[in-house]
């Protein structure tokens, strides 16, 4: 099969790299929007992993799980946007280090 020329490990390395970039983004940025985008990157890394395994094992289950993850990501972004807009209205900024009302 011609498609088998890319080893499965390459996709795993790509997925790990994108996931690590997402973790790095969450740990280093203070903008709430950057949090949201980094979470999207991490979810996409997990999706790459699932689809790669589904392809190399000849099993469709990974693709079905990826569909679930996509729906979850869309819902999560909708909720996150609402939270960020309320954050902006209350604190006049989207810096997550500014919102300390629930801390004491």
């Amino acid at each position, binding site marked *: 099969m*011609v*498609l088998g*020329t*890319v080893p499965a490990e*390459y*996709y795993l390395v*790509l997925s790990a*790299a*994108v996931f690590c*970039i*997402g973790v*790095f*983004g969450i740990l*280093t*940025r203070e*903008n709430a*929007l*950057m949090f*949201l*985008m*980094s979470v*999207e*990157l991490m979810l*996409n890394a997990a*999706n*790459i992993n699932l*689809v*790669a395994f*589904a*392809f190399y094992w000849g099993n469709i289950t990974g*693709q079905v799980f*990826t*569909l679930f993850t*996509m*729906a979850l*990501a*869309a819902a999560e*972004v*909708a909720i996150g*946007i609402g939270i*960020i*807009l309320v954050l*902006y209205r209350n604190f006049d*900024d*989207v810096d997550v280090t500014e919102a300390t009302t629930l801390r004491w």
Partner: protein
Amino acid sequence: MAVVPYQLLAFLLFALVTVGASLGVVLARDVWHSALLLGVALLSVAVHYVMLSAEFLAAMQVLVYVGGVLILITFAVMLVRRESGPETEVAP
């Protein structure tokens, strides 16, 4: 005649695009640039899906992520963004 590994070359090219755009997302100063680079990263992930013979998932990736999630993020950036740079703060 040497066999050219087109699959491998395409994978490496788009893996480079994915990782580069993802790095751009987390390293860009401007949030709007980050949102645009996130679109590039999501589209290149769709290309990976096509190479893994998951065409339906690639279509869903473009529709849901680039068509829905990225539009929502753009919406939030437009509503929330203030001009970057500490000296451009406008006095109330």
